[in-house]
């Protein structure tokens, strides 16, 4: 058994919770990065077409498209990429640390691709029309492949966050066993398909402004077909993907995600299909504004649910079904020498074993009970729940029916949570006094005033120390 927990300080964001901070940055990043990879392929395909069919006007389109590709997707993608990384760092330090220590060489390989990509993107934009066609094509195809490679390299990590899908990695600890997990290929398939679909929509923003009628029709049709193919592939891959998910994820998808987002996603799917079919049929009717709206709609109504679902569906874990969202190790991983935190918190609790707890809270007393309860609740629950009644992230008071009875709340902590009976919540085998303190605090959120606090408030009202 361990002696102390390796927990870090906690960042608590009132109202929206750290999960939403990640979701917001994640959505922007996914939209930008998939657009940029899709655009890289579009660029290569169209450059090829321009050269082999001797249509220089397509190159002119690319020159225009290139600026856009550069600003919108590549730059925003490359700043928000580290942005996700930073936000995950402060939302889930042990989660990202676990991933980094497993996948550091995959990430380092991805970085090599990033580096050649960033110089490649400038080369593509500035050298268009300034170097011979053959060399330009080599550049464009290297760039397209390299962009896709960055996706090929990040998906192992993202899909491992869901689960390894078999027991191999737990005993070998091998990076490749973790990388080529059960849902890797399905996940890669969805993202690849999505990148074509979104590039089809984004391409329209520029295509709609082309002057030459024939080129405009041709390119718009090309984009529509690419978008449709992407959508179709995405549906197929999605079906495969759901078949590779763990039980808890499928449960959350069916009971929580579908009721919440199902109709939005369905409507978006329909709208996108109509959009692509219509623009293939009547390319000249496509207006720039419509393409902008379509792109934003995909981001808002498609990616936001996707990002939130991916986060929700791997509950109670944040990575590899061995790190819980609230940063505790749920099990041993013999292949890596990782030891479960559960026996330690069962024996000694969290206050005594976490370095980042004030000395005076290490032992619960009637006077500090409420403050101890607050710290504990934030450590144990805040990754997934706001404590404010009107918080955006599954707020706790309403989930307890705004109960102000510590006993009732503690019954839940003693039973379901203690034994890990809820498929989407971590097991929390905390000692009796810590559970009592949490129950007290959660009840106080709905108006309960514990006797000890009432007394001390009456005697010296200035010593309201708490967590902010």
């Amino acid at each position, binding site marked *: 058994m361990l002696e102390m927990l390796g927990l870090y300080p906690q960042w608590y964001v009132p109202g929206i919770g750290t999960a939403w901070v990640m979701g917001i940055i994640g959505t922007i990043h996914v939209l930008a990065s998939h657009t940029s990879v899709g655009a890289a392929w579009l660029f290569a395909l169209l450059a090829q077409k321009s050269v082999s069919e001797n249509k220089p006007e397509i190159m002119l389109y690319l020159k225009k498209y290139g600026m856009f590709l550069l600003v919108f997707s590549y730059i925003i993608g490359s700043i928000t990429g580290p942005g996700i990384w930073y936000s995950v760092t402060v939302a889930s330090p042990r989660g990202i640390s676990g991933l980094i220590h497993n996948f550091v060489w995959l990430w380092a390989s991805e970085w090599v691709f990033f580096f050649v990509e960033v110089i490649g993107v400038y080369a593509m934009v500035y050298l268009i029309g300034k170097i011979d066609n053959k060399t330009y094509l080599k550049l464009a195809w290297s760039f397209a492949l390299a962009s896709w*490679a960055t996706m090929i390299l990040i998906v192992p990590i993202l899909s491992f966050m869901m689960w390894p899908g078999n027991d191999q990695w737990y005993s070998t600890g091998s990076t490749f066993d973790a990388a080529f997990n059960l849902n890797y290929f399905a996940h890669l398939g969805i993202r690849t398909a999505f990148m074509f679909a979104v590039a089809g929509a984004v391409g329209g923003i520029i295509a709609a402004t082309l002057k030459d009628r024939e080129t405009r029709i041709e390119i718009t049709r090309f984009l529509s077909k690419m978008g449709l193919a992407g959508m179709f592939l995405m549906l197929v891959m999605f079906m495969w993907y759901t078949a590779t998910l763990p039980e808890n994820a499928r449960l959350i998808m069916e009971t929580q995600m579908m009721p919440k987002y199902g109709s939005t996603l369905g409507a978006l799917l329909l709208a996108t299909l109509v959009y692509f079919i219509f623009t293939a049929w009547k390319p000249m009717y496509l207006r720039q504004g419509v393409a902008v709206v379509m792109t934003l709609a995909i981001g808002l109504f498609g990616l936001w649910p996707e990002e939130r679902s991916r986060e929700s569906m791997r509950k109670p874990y944040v990575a590899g079904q061995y790190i819980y969202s609230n940063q505790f190790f749920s099990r041993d991983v013999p292949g890596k020498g990782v030891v479960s935190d559960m026996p330690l918190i069962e024996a000694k609790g969290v206050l005594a074993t976490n370095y980042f707890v004030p000395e005076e809270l290490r032992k619960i007393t009637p006077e500090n009970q409420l403050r101890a309860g607050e710290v504990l609740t934030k450590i144990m629950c805040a990754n997934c729940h706001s404590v404010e009644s009107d918080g955006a992230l599954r707020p706790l008071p309403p989930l307890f029916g705004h109960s102000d009875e510590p006993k009732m709340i503690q019954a839940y902590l003693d039973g379901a949570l203690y034994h890990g009976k809820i498929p989407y919540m971590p097991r929390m085998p905390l000692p009796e006094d810590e559970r009592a303190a949490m129950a007290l605090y959660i009840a106080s959120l709905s108006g309960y005033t514990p006797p000890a606090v009432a007394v001390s408030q009456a005697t010296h009202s200035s010593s309201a120390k708490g967590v902010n």
Partner: protein
Amino acid sequence: MDVASTAAMLHTLQDPTGIPSHPLIFQVLMVFTWVPHILFVNISLGAALMGLYAFTKRHDPHWQKLSEAMTKVAKVGVSLLVVLGVAPLLFTQTIYDPQWYASNLLSASWVIGFIFTLTIGYLAWFTFYLKNHGDHAPGWIFWLGVFGLAMFFLDGFIMHVLAYQGLHPEKWVEWYTPDGHVDMSGNSVHAYELVRWGFFMAMSVTVFGAFLIAYGDYFKVRADRGPAYLAFARKLGSQIAFVGAVAQVVLLLGWMLDVPAALKIWTHPMSWLLLIYLGVLVAAFAVARGSDTQGQGYKLLTLSIGMAGLVAIFREVLRMAYMAPFNYSVLDYKVLWDVPSFVLFLLTIVGVGGLMGGFIITLVYKAGRVSGVYQADATVSRLGVGSVAATALWVAGFMAVGIWIWLSNNG
């Protein structure tokens, strides 16, 4: 927190997963991948400042041309420095995870602020760049540029805070629980060292100056950049670099005085090596300042890159000194070798980095020196084939290995 508890805490915080190769490999990569990051930080900050200064004198054609050019350099430079920052970020988090995560969590709001300010700062700068053309560029865009640069300075400062707070593990718990009251807001900056930050800013002056001299040399074969303009750029560059190098010496001494005496940084050979090297730089730029630097640009730039290499090593030596009392040495990190993924990295950096990177850099370099359409020579042409082949083979190879492992684990 006392030394023994701090040491115990650091070891508990280390990720129990261990690392997949010898720590020295990560340490060397961390130090040397940081060099290009800081070089582009330096060039971008310097170029942005110069772009703005020159903008105010844009009635003069030389300054106007310089303003446009430097605005563009900063635009490209920032996007490169971001990508180049990823590698040291990865390796720091691999071997100095307790320091990095604790420091980030303690100032979490700033970490998120860093991303937002970097994004809007960059968009502001980009808009300034789009409008900064010709001598009739509207005056108001100046403030857009100033805003962008201010954000970059702020972000550099946040970076500094994150690095510096990580060096004081003995204070983390105190910072997190002031007066026994737990602060989960992440709103505070707990510690910074202005001389250290100032040193990196002075370094920007030096490196940018050297860059400007090299810029003057690079374009000398282009008929559309007049020799008078290039000489103007070189002269400006050598004056700037001299000032920067002198400021660096002063700030380095200040920095070393500020480091706790117990760390004995004054007796470390690395400190003296860096001081002496900076002395040589001061002398080199003093000479350059008084003469025509034509043809000297690459030499002076290389000299400055060497300085950045020494600064990187010095930073690490200092970090090791800060960590020594806590018995924290990266060399003790638990290692569980993972050979296949390490080989993947080596193949990627040699195959893709070498061929595709080599192709693009050679192509850009050669095409940039031609005014009209550039016709690839045999070397570039062969590199191009190598570049496509290497990336295609990489994708095919990765997929093949993946399918094989997937089938044997899930079949």
